[in-house]
């Protein structure tokens, strides 16, 4: 049984249908890439997964529990952390306070302290700037904060929405290295990216989304050499 099973998901914005029945699976320990052009429905998929949007049809099963109708604020406790598109850090709070918001549902102070130490180890920059207002960080640092904040919940599954968006190439590489580290640490990863080349290079499997439908799926290595993919997404 897969860790996460999404089946026939349909989502509307008013009368506009953004997801037209999509299905995919994420297995424990995998890195799954969800790629597709701007407007394909990637963000909608992740928002529906974590309860920020509701579906009109279909189901989402996480670890044998039906979470289709579970409200957003109960999702993180079940073990899914969401790094949203555009980072959405709390600009007025300090870096430290943002990280503590990530641990909002956790009770054990000692465990939280342990996770914080790990996050600081992974993102030394965040520790250097822990007292600083998060809004003053650079784009790359804010992305790190958004990831660190998600890791503070100690998730089983982390879903990330275009973490490399708008970052300089150096930061992009750094972010992808960190995603690989997070995965190596045992966290399952669902990665949404427009940077298909990079995403496929670290993913085990991938799904290709086009105007609300999954049009292609398979092993990342295979997709990377697929002619249609090369043409449409890899710019070759």
């Amino acid at each position, binding site marked *: 049984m897969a860790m996460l099973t999404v089946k026939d998901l349909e989502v509307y914005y008013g009368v506009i249908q953004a997801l037209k029945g999509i299905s995919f699976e994420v297995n424990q320990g995998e890195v799954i890439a969800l790629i597709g052009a701007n407007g394909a429905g990637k963000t909608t998929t992740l928002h529906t997964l*974590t*309860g*920020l949007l509701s579906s009109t049809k279909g189901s989402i099963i996480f670890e044998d529990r039906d979470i289709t109708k579970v*409200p*957003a*604020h*109960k*999702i*993180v*406790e079940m073990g899914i*952390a*969401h790094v*949203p598109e555009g980072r*959405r*850090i*709390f*600009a*007025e*709070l300090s870096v430290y*306070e943002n990280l*503590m*918001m*990530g641990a*909002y*549902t956790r009770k054990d102070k000692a465990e939280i302290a342990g996770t914080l130490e790990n996050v600081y180890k992974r993102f030394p920059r965040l520790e250097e700037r822990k007292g600083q207002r998060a809004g003053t960080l650079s784009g790359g640092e804010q992305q790190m904060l958004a990831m660190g*904040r998600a890791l503070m*919940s100690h998730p089983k599954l982390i879903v990330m929405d275009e973490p490399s968006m708008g970052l300089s190439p150096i930061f992009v590489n750094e972010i992808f290295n960190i995603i690989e580290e997070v995965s190596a640490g045992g966290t399952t990863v669902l990665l949404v990216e427009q940077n298909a080349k990079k995403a496929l290079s670290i993913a085990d499997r991938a799904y290709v989304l086009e105007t609300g439908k999954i049009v292609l799926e398979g092993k990342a290595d295979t997709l990377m050499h697929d002619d249609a993919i090369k043409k449409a997404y890899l710019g070759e």
Partner: protein
Amino acid sequence: MSFISHLINGISLGSVYAIIALGYTMVYGIAKMLNFAHGDVIMIGAYVVFTSMTGMGLNPILSILLSMVVCTVLGVVIERIAYKPLRNAASPLAVLITAIGISYLLQNVALLLFGAGAKTFTNVVTFPSISLAGGKLTITGVTIVTILACIVIMVGLSLFVGKTKPGRAMQAVSEDRGAAQLMGVNVNGTIALTFAIGSALAAIAGVLLCSAYPSLTPYTGAMPGIKAFVAAVFGGIGSIPGAMIGGILLGIIELLSKAYISSQVADAIVFAVLIVVLLIKPTGLFGKNIQEKV
């Protein structure tokens, strides 16, 4: 000496506006709505104190506590019944109009229960006046208590919002509701808590207001409510220190205008100052220049 006396009275009146404005500004910051019924919650709170003291013979402290409980429940119930169902309404006007409707409802319920005649508010604050500068300057007990209450509330609220977990959740919801939910924050609960705090503060404001101006009618809350809203906008709506400074400045401007210009146009001057401030700094004194998300 009379200038200092007017100034102190202005600070005191402004402290009441500030306490009311906190309710406006917190609700706006977190629920993104203007709760125009807030002023009328003050009036209900004042009637509770009036009734429990003169009708039931309760002592002042118990009366105030009872009033805070009633207002808290009232605020939370209004939010739950009237505003929450409209939270995802297509137009923000829906909730605004509802709030105005609730305001009239509360006024008319009070009219039904207590009649239109003004009630003379009992003296709740039994703090002695103090005399300074060889008797040239007298500060009443109510004035002192009002200013002290305002300081205590400000400090307490700042500590609550800045240092506690529910306070931080409030800040997070106010900045980005969706992101806060992803952290596990129950937005409905946070909004209810905000209404509870704002309404409890309204009860305190009601007592202080009616102690300084002891004539209580169903419309007692309306004008101070509007002034406090102006104060909140003046300070930068959504900002807690803004509400505080805005309220106190407004009180000072109002009383000095009454004393030195004309008591008829004092309110007009208050609103004129607001317009000037908003022309110069549209987000208010402490407002942040955050662009509305589309």
